[in-house]
């Protein structure tokens, strides 16, 4: 098992480097699309952490939005524009929120967990919409970020954000991978299978889930921060349930089998969504809904499971 892991990590690392190197050669809109996709992939990583334990959160947009607004407000109120610092603050802010939310959320499972997380994100939406000083439904724009003193413009800015998102994404992927190989991470399947036995083996399941909620929240906040800087604008829609639904969609599409799936799946989703919106703007939601339905019914473990099946078939065919 460790052999496959090592190889997968190598391949993953190479792909990241490839993506980074390809940046300057790609047109702006693809770079921008990819940046958003990888920022969202971080949120999806958080969802995967929870999903493996049997918990589906329909409210990751809460942390996504908090991360975004932390970036926007910090820049506006304190003048800090350093991207690295802002992302760090966003992650911390979202993480603290997740710790607080976790005290309530970690006691529940299944549908209750899903609906409660949805409700909490909608509360934030409601508050933001009704707060005139924060621009209500229009939101407000994000100041241009700087990178350790360096202040790029236009294409250079796009590339800088792209590379930063790739870098943060890679770090996130590695950390989450380490987490999955730890006891707490590996407890996901046992908790999903038989919580009581896990308790009898000597573990507080609620505390492990609380930790997972926190990790997912921090990842969500970092993703939201990167997205906010890339788009240049924040608004309450980032907390709306359709945003959460989009992350859930990608997770279903990608499956929870691997960390890489989050990034690939997110890229595919962004591509498909842009394409559907351009080609059939009045039917793109229906398209997404149908794809989702088909995936749930016929490919419940996501696209990632196809890769696993192909790999296994290749292994059995070799004499």
């Amino acid at each position, binding site marked *: *098992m460790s052999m496959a892991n090592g190889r997968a990590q190598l391949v993953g690392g190479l792909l990241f480097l490839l993506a980074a190197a390809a940046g300057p050669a790609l047109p702006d809109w693809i770079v921008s699309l990819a940046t958003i996709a990888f920022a969202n992939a971080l949120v999806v990583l958080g969802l995967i952490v929870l999903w493996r334990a049997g918990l589906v959160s329909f409210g990751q947009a809460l942390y996504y939005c908090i991360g975004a607004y932390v970036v926007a407000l910090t820049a506006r109120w304190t003048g800090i524009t350093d991207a690295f610092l802002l992302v760090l603050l966003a992650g911390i802010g979202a993480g603290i929120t997740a710790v607080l939310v976790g005290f309530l959320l970690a006691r529940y499972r299944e549908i209750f967990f899903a609906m409660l997380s949805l409700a909490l994100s909608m509360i934030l939406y409601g508050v933001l919409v009704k707060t005139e000083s924060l621009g209500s439904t229009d939101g407000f724009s994000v100041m241009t970020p700087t990178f350790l003193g360096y202040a790029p413009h236009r294409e250079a800015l796009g590339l800088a954000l792209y590379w930063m998102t790739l870098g943060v994404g890679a770090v996130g992927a590695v950390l989450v991978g380490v987490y999955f190989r*730890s*006891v707490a991470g590996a407890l996901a399947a*046992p908790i999903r299978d*038989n919580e009581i*036995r896990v308790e*009898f*083996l000597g573990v507080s399941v609620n505390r492990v889930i609380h930790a997972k909620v926190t990790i997912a929240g921090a990842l969500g906040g970092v993703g939201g921060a990167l997205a906010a800087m890339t788009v240049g604008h924040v608004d309450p829609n980032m907390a709306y349930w359709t945003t959460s639904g989009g992350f859930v969609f990608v997770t279903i599409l990608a499956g929870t089998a691997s960390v890489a799936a989050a990034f690939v799946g997110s890229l595919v989703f962004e591509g498909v969504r842009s394409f559907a919106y351009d080609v059939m703007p009045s039917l793109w939601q229906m398209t997404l809904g149908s794809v989702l339905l088909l995936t749930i019914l016929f490919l419940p473990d996501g696209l990632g499971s196809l890769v696993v099946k192909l790999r296994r078939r290749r292994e059995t065919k070799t004499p």
Partner: protein
Amino acid sequence: MNTTAPVTIASGERPILSVRDLEKTFGSLVAARDITVSIPPQQTVGVIGANGAGKTTFVNMVTGHLMPSKGAILFEDREITGMPSREITRLGISRSFQVAQIFPSLSVFDNMCIAAAIARSSGGVLGGLASPVASPAAIAEAESTIELFQISSYRDTTASTLPQGVRKLLDIGMAVVGWPRLLLLDEPTSGISIEEKFDLMNVVMSALKSRKITVLFVEHDMEIVGRFADRVLAFYDGTVIADGTPDETLADPQVQELITGVKLKSAAGAGGHA
């Protein structure tokens, strides 16, 4: 009523488990009352009694699944009454279940490995985060326990497809992989066919003896109880009505009247069942 415990605690020897005036009520239902028992280390205690007599309630209280209404439970002189099960497990008391509680989607090896990894980790969330689950030590413990319970041929089988006997062995193995000092087995042979019961108990008991574990097992088959127990506790209506060697307890007239039934002298040598 013969209640002298021949297996008295030798002076100076600390009992591994000591229970005093234990009681549990659910509303108006008294599930257990006046239970006072002392168990010396490495004894094998059989617990008999009809369904509903309070045996599983007793096990649940000792292992932290139920909070006693009254009384005290001490493990090696340390009060553990009302502690949650995960803390009690960390102290050294483990249990197996009437219906095997395993992780159906994982293989036998993964089941055992996660149990071993948890036992080796410190228990706090941060401590658990730090230690890798597939550490060589955990793997080694898992492999040796699988071998100890003789289920190596099922090592990579998905747990949901296991035959009942192997399930039970896995269930017990997971409770043992962390080297507990006291193990409570709740009907280890339930659901096992009569021929296979003895084989299973032989494997289990030799495994437990090799690790010097004190055992308390709930059982309905009197032949099994007679063969494997050093001492037998008889439960009836929520309390202990007899406590002695298997021969003594099974010969006790009250036990015979209420639990086992009077043994008929028949040629077929039918074993008793409660």
